[in-house]
C-alpha cells in the first residue's frame, strides 16, 4: 500500500460546529490531550507538491510524520473544501489550483 502523509487540521469549537453540520464530526480524532483534529491525507506526489508550492511547510519526519506549518489561509482553504465536499478526500481538487 502506498504511503499516506496527513495534514492535521486542528479543530476548535467554531470548526467543530461546521464539521457537525457537514456530518463529519465523527471523523475528528482526539490527537493531543483531548485536542481534536481532522486529518486529510496526501500521497507521495501530493506531499512533494505541497512542500514545493508552500516553502514554509515542513514534513515532520522525526516525530509525527505529518505535513506541518502550512500557512493559516491555506489550512483554512483546505478545511473549507473538506466541509464543502463533505469529504476528507480533497487534496487532488485542492492542488488543481496550484
Amino acid at each position: 500500500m502506498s504511503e499516506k502523509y496527513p495534514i492535521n487540521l486542528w479543530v476548535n469549537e467554531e470548526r467543530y460546529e461546521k464539521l457537525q453540520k457537514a456530518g463529519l464530526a465523527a471523523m475528528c480524532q482526539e490527537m493531543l490531550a483531548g485536542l481534536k483534529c481532522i486529518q486529510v491525507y496526501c500521497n507521495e506526489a501530493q506531499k512533494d507538491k505541497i512542500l514545493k508550492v508552500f516553502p514554509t511547510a515542513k514534513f515532520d519526519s522525526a516525530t509525527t510524520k505529518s505535513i506541518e506549518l502550512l500557512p493559516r489561509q491555506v489550512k483554512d482553504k483546505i478545511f473549507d473544501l473538506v466541509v464543502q465536499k463533505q469529504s476528507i478526500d480533497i487534496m487532488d481538487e485542492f492542488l488543481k489550483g496550484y
Partner: protein
Amino acid sequence: MAEIGHGGKEIKERILEPAEAKKRIQGLKAYPIRSQLANEVIGIAYGFFSPLEGFMGKADVEAVCKKMRLKDGKTVWSIPIVFDMSNEEIAQYGVKPGASILLTYTGNPMAIFEIEEVYEYDKKSLAKDVYGTDETKHPGCARTYAYKDKFVGGKIALVNRPKINEPFTPYFLPPLQLRKIFKEKGWKRIVAHQTRNVPHTGHEWLMKGAWFQTYGELPMDKPYVGVLVNAIIGEKRKGDYIDEAIILTQDELRKSGYFGDHNHLTSLTFWDMRYAGPREAVFHAALRTNLGLTHHMFGRDHAGVGTYYGPYDAHRLLESLQGEINIVPVYSENWLYCPHCGEITSESLCNHKKEWQKFSGTLIRSIVQDGVKPPRLIFRPEVFDLVLECAEKYGFGSPFVGEEYLAKRTPVFVMPPLA
C-alpha cells in the same frame, strides 16, 4: 578570585575604558561589519568564547577543522570563528599584519581589530570537516561558501558597550555577571537548556527532568540547583518564532510559577546557528562552561538539521571528550503525552506505548498557526497568551518571522555613539 572558563583559562573581558578607547581609535579606518560578525565580536569580548581573544588565524582554523582543538593541541574547540573580507576591502582598508582597523556596527564604533594574519582557507574542506558534508543545502555549508575571499585573524578589543533593546535588556547576562548571580543564588550546580523555541510542556519537562538528574545527591535544605535557559539569538529564518516571543515565554514559565526564582533563570547568547549537530553540541558545551554552568542538557539530534546527523551522534561525540570538557552532559530523550497516565511522561518511563501521543515543536507551531489554543497539558495558557501578545506587539500580527518582521523589527542590539 579568578573566574576560570573553558580550557582552564581565566575569563577576561576585552573591553576598553571609554577614555582609552577614544584615544586608541583615532586615525583608524572604520570598517562596517554585518550582524554575524558583530555577534561574534560580543562573544569574544565578553568571554562567551573564552579562551579566544580574537578571530582565528590559519593554524587555529586548521587545528579546529582537523583535530577539533585549538592550535595549542589541548583546548577542545569545534567551530571556526573567522572574519572574512574581500580582496578589494583588504586593499581599501589597508588590512595587513600589524595594522588595526575600527569595526563599526549600526553606524557607530564597536571594536578595534588588531590584525595578525590575512590568509586563504579551502572553504569546501572547512565545510566537510565541520559539517560532515559539503552540500550547499546544509545551512552551515551555505554560510561557509558565502564567506568572502580571505580570512583575517587577530585580537579584538571592544571600544563601546552595545545597547540592548527592550525586551531583551534584562536577559543579556555575560559570563562574569552571570557567575555573580549564580553565587548570589547559592546554586552549586546549574544545568543549561539550549533553546531557540517557545516552550511547550515537552520542553518544560526536559528542563524538569534535567533538574532532577543534576540535583543528584545534593541535600534539599536549600535550592542548590538551577536551570539556565540560554536562548540563542541570531539570524532568523522565515517561519521561526520571533525572538521576543522566545525569550519572554521562556521566562514566563518562571513568572507563572511552573518554575521559580529559586531554580530558573533565562538569559541569551548572540550566535548565528551553524546547525553543525555534534560539533555544535561541543561548541555549546564550551560556551556554557564559560557562562559558569556545571551541567548541560543534550537532547535528541542536538543542533542538527535535516537528516545529516544521527539522533545520538552528539551524545557519542561528547562521551569521547569526557575529561577534556568541564561540563557534565545530561542526556535526555523526548517527553510525550500519555492519555492512559493522563500526564506528560518520558519514553523511558511509560510503557503504554500504543497510546502515546508524541508532539514536537513543529506540531505545536502548526497548532498555534491555525489559531487554535492547545490544551494546558501541552502548552501553558500563560505561554499561549504571551505568544499572541508578542505577535501583536513585536511580530506585525504574527508570532512567526515574516518579511515585515525581518525588514522592520527593532534590532536586538545597536552600538550607541561613543560617549
